[in-house]
């Protein structure tokens, strides 16, 4: 495997009252890889994405620790001016609801052209041509005339394509996709996911795909990181995680997926995720974990490398291997 393109280590996002929304997040995104970031609502996935872009909502949130390395530079410590040049140009971002994330009164083509003119200093005409090309790349039919449309004239799937075109207009090497298919129906969702995979295969774009849908992960991702209450519990290749999860939470999530041959009631994980201002003292999943012990109640497990490229933050991983004892 190649060197990581984006490497996040011990990223920490906190409120001014000292609540950690993202706690010690570490992962690596390789060139041409799709990494799924999975977790339920409120687990800090979106916060983590925003932190990577240094676009945390509100002045009360801040990155309080860790590093985000892109091609060797630490984005956390980059001056705001240089960060602006990174956004859109080296890291692109797409969002859950394309309808509201596109400027409603500017023509799609002009929006794409604006990004190209800003980042690449292209002339008006070059930028226009590049904008049409960007729309063609994401499979919008008749991009020439479609570039003169407004967002409301597009269907949901087309809008998501347009947003991908906008985010990828300046050909960033990393794309952060924050639940890009959640607002779409399944057929359109499949098209968008196919588009993302196509962009990875043809252009080598690395994609961080945030989702809560393990089905999406199974279809598209090369590897997966599972988040729970702001912390990573397990990261592994998609195949390894889906076939043999090591963390009880990951295993629980997989059991919650409906299977086509499945009959009977759907499995659930009992209980609720903890409130972030009242975390349990030990492992955050301990109150809901079927395999919890006294150790789990007292000590927060660190994420440690389990086997080749695989990490799990659990005292009692499901394969019964190394039970880590804090000294």
């Amino acid at each position, binding site marked *: 495997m190649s060197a990581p393109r984006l490497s996040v280590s011990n990223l920490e996002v906190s409120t001014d009252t000292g609540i950690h929304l993202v706690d010690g997040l570490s992962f690596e995104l390789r060139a041409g890889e799709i990494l799924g970031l999975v977790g339920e609502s409120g687990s800090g996935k979106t916060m983590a994405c925003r932190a990577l*872009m240094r*676009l945390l*909502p509100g002045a009360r949130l801040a990155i309080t620790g860790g590093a985000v390395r892109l091609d060797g530079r630490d984005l956390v410590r980059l001056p705001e001016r240089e960060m*602006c*040049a*990174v*956004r*859109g*140009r080296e890291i*692109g*971002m797409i*969002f859950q*609801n394309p309808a*509201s*994330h*596109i*400027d*409603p*009164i*500017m023509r799609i083509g002009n929006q794409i052209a*604006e*990004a190209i003119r*800003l*980042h690449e200093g292209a002339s008006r005409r070059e930028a226009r041509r590049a904008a049409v090309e960007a729309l063609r790349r994401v499979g919008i039919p008749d991009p020439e005339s479609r570039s003169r449309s407004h967002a409301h004239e597009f269907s949901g799937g087309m809008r998501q394509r347009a*947003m991908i075109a*906008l*985010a990828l207009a300046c050909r960033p090497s990393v794309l952060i996709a924050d639940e890009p298919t959640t607002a779409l129906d399944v057929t359109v969702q499949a098209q968008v996911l196919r588009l993302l995979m196509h962009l990875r295969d043809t252009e080598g774009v690395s994609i961080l795909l945030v989702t809560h849908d393990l089905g999406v992960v199974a279809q598209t991702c090369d590897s997966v990181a599972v988040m729970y209450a702001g912390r990573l519990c397990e990261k592994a290749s998609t195949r390894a995680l889906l076939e043999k999860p090591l963390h009880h939470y990951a295993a629980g999530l997989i059991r919650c997926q409906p299977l086509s041959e499945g009959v009977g009631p759907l499995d659930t994980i009992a209980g609720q995720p903890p409130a972030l201002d009242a975390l349990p003292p030990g492992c955050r999943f301990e109150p809901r974990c079927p395999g919890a012990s006294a150790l789990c109640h007292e000590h927060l497990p660190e994420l440690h490398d389990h086997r080749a490229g695989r990490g799990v933050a659990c005292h009692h991983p499901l394969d019964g291997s190394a039970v880590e004892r804090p000294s």
Partner: protein
Amino acid sequence: MKVSGSSEALAGLGAAVPRMRSPLLRRFSAQSTLVFGAMLFTAFVAIALAAPLIAPYDPIYQDLDARLAPPGLAHPFGTDNFGRDILSRVIWATRIDLQIALIGVAFPFVIGTLVGTVAGYAGGWVDAVLMRLIDVVLAFPYLVLMLALIAILGPGLTSFYIAMALVGWVSYARLVRARILVLKNADFAIAAQSLGYGHTRIMFRHLLPNALAGSVVFAMSDAVLVLLAGASISYLGLGVQPPASEWGLMVAEGQSFITSAWWLTTFPGLAIVVLSFAFSLFADGLGERLGVRT
């Protein structure tokens, strides 16, 4: 019981029919309001542009033999106490009054929009300072503050425009600020940030165009108030100076003859009313069209 129940239901259905038609009607009426307002306004612009061609007399030519002539064939709107043709004066005054309405709106609009955008987007102490400044301006009665400013600057239209700009911007600033406050947290503003856009670009290229609809509509209805303010200022002798003609000034000049020669004040007064009406209709229609509630 059952029968009466169903007849009630039928009656309810009958009542519902005109209600179902009403959105269409409203749409039609909004459209016609807009069109009619625009037509009236265009007519005034045409009159102003063609003033030298359509005015039957020189507006300041004094025909002392025909003083205070009532409306008739030679002078359709009559003449004033100097024997000047009222129709010609009303036509020529259209130029000045349109100018008052447009310039008197344009400066406050531009200043207010800029201030409101910056205040709303920056927030914090910038916002607080600008908002308190607005409170100070609003604390004075509008016309009194204008009169005070014009008194300092000296009478004349230039002073009027300056005073209007200094007093009128506050409404636009508050309107735009309120919209920007909402829009700056909109999803597309975050998306714009994720594309690496700076604050200035986001403010003026993405947020401001989305915030403008309300102020444009307000500007049209504000034009009515500005027109009336201009007329009032001239009426008080601080705006347009004689012998130039301006509707408010003409009303002022004619008021001592109001019992003996009603046409001196009535026709310029009507002109004010009709132009205001045109602006109001245009504003209403535009608001309906742009989906702005005023």
